């Protein structure tokens, strides 16, 4: 049991021991860090493929149809086929586009999406690095995505893209506020910004039970932050074709696509870590618990997408500023009073 639960830790220690035999310490440290990053990257790409597959299959079941079921058993290889297709596609740049900006935008969008995973603990001791301001780091890195999307919209030289980029800027900046406010209340209870500490504090009861309001607000704001339905205005198909990435094709489009699903999984992973006790759970290995919880949250997002229509720009903003922000603030005040009372009584 121990061996299964700690399989990744054991493997990493074994490799470390092996390397330490003939390499200086700093090289070993560097190699180990690189290995961890590579492992996480491979894992994330597999996760994105699984997400795409799930999104198509689960939604198909909800809509009374089959979904992809031709490539491989149950269509499992469909994401692989899609990736190959995207790799082989011609990369088109419109004449009116700004070449540098058009090239940079997908990178600016993808990098922060990957960076957020640096501090998420996938299991016990399974994170690339434990930063003592982990949550702050995630929020800070996440807001960089907005720049990438605005740049993509602006640099494409297409009016639909500009509209999509503008919407994205307004929406993501607005929804970051309730998102952060929702994350602050659990921090008040835990008393630390480190992701590892936050998970550790939930060994008895997950924070979602103590902070149900914050949990719901985080999920709503998170869905809005990653532009998923019903808040998918920046890429609203019915009016803006594909919004900010209308003019992207081939691998550049694939990068946007990758970033989108990475961000969606990041929202699920952060919600798991902060509100659902992270990797903790009985019987099954920790990484299975973490992954299971996050995927379940993602399936809930698919469900929402298959059910709800899209809000309009003004309604979206109204909802954020008139509903989410006040509720999040009120929740924060109540939590603060509660925590101080608790400390007065107990501590």
């Amino acid at each position, binding site marked *: 049991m121990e061996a299964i639960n700690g399989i990744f830790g054991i493997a990493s220690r074994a490799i470390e021991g092996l390397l330490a035999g003939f390499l200086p310490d700093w090289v070993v440290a560097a190699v180990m860090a690189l290995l961890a990053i590579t492992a996480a990257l491979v894992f994330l790409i597999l996760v994105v493929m699984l997400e795409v597959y799930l999104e198509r299959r689960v*939604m198909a079941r*909800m*809509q*009374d*149809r089959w979904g992809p079921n031709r490539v491989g058993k149950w269509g499992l290889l469909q994401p692989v086929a899609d990736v190959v297709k995207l790799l082989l596609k011609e990369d088109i740049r419109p004449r009116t586009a700004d070449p540098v900006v058009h090239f940079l935008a997908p990178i600016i969008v993808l990098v922060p999406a990957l960076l957020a995973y640096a501090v998420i603990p996938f299991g016990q001791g399974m994170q690339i690095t434990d930063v003592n301001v982990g949550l702050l780091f995630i929020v800070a890195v996440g807001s960089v995505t907005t720049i990438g999307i605005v740049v993509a919209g602006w640099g494409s030289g297409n*009016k*639909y893209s*500009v*509209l999509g980029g503008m*919407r994205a800027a307004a929406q993501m900046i607005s929804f970051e506020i309730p998102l952060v406010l929702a994350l602050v209340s659990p921090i008040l209870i835990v008393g630390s910004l480190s992701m590892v500490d936050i998970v550790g504090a939930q060994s008895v009861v997950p924070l979602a039970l103590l902070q149900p309001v914050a949990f719901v607000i985080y999920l709503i704001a998170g869905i809005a932050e990653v532009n998923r*339905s*019903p808040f*998918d*205005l920046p890429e*609203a*198909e*019915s*009016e*803006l*074709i594909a919004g900010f990435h209308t003019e992207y094709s081939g691998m550049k489009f694939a990068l946007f696509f990758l970033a989108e699903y990475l961000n969606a999984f990041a929202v699920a992973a952060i919600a798991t870590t902060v509100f659902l006790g992270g990797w903790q759970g009985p019987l099954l290995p920790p990484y299975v618990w973490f992954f299971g919880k996050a995927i379940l949250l993602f399936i809930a997002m698919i469900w929402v*997408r*298959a*059910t*709800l*229509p*899209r*809000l*309009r*720009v*003004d*309604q979206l903003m109204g909802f954020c500023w008139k509903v989410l922000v006040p509720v999040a603030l009120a929740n924060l005040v109540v939590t603060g009073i509660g925590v101080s009372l608790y400390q007065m009584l107990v501590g």
Partner: protein
Amino acid sequence: MSEITLRTEQTISTFPMDTDDGTLVVNFGPQHPSTHGVFRLVMKLEGETIVDAVPVMGYLHRSVEKLSESRTYLQGVPFTDRLDYLAAMSNNLAYALAVEKLAGIEVPERAEYIRVIMVELNRIASHQMAVGSLANDVGTYYTPFIYCFRDREKILDLFEMVSGQRLTYSYIRFGGVSRDLPEEFVPACRKLLDELPRNIDEYERMLTTNEIFLARTRNVGVLPPDMAIDYSVTGPVLRASGVPYDLRRAEPYSIYDRFEFDIPVGTVGDVYDRYLVRIQEMRESAKIVRQALDQLPGGPARASLPKVMRPPKGDAYAQVENPKGVLGYYLVSDGGPNPYRAKVRAPSFINLTALRPLVIGHKVADSIVILGSFDIVLGEVDR
């Protein structure tokens, strides 16, 4: 730098495609996922608000009216399928009624009933498409759309059973219908009617009380009754504005005076009312089909006619309540085998003229929803 020109209400609104006053001119269509075909809408935007809009039609013009002047009356039937291809039966009927009026043909009783059954089933299928694509325009990711399509398939199966076709039926012809109903039709149709109310409930569960759907459709694109009449708008769009004008009741054609049915009307005339009217009309149509099946008499389904029709000199106008509105067919005969002139009063085209005043002042996203609520078919708009 290209310019766009349109004549509306005695004024010519012209604006360049590139502006320097802070507005953005966006060209929607003719290739666009939400224009329901090759319709083009040039919009002048201030931020996300539409300050002016110019609808451009004609990308699907196939000269159907002129073409039918060089075809015999029978060869004109397939052209009607290709007008509003979601309601080919209704178009067949309008044309058949016009030819029958022109040539003075008596239609057998059984054919009249079969026609009503087909046309009403076609109305349900067309409204399913309208509701489904409106839901898509509002932004649901295909779920109601596919529900609607799933049920529309069953109606198409029935049409395939009677005519061999799933889209362009050419089934209702002057003198009756092209062939009698097959034996298995009536039980299959009854089964469909039994399932239909539950299916419609399913769409309603997804949309009718959905908070976001309400927010997106209520008080959006309000068409007041007087304005609707001014623009000659017909069909569900007119009735949603609160004008209970339905040709089946106002000027009953065929045998519509024998059936009991209600005419659903809206109160506000917004997108939501148009949606509700369509949902209720589906239920009413099912009622009519049920009555027609119960009363279905025996006898021939087609009058015997000469191979090549040569109607006497004269003209005739016949109109029917198509799912989109009033479809009229005007035929002039000079005594020859071909119509001398054929003219179609296309409801989608005339309804579409009310689009411009409705979208101005709304947000970009609303313009798509308003267009979707008009339920246009470009095959009919451009003919």
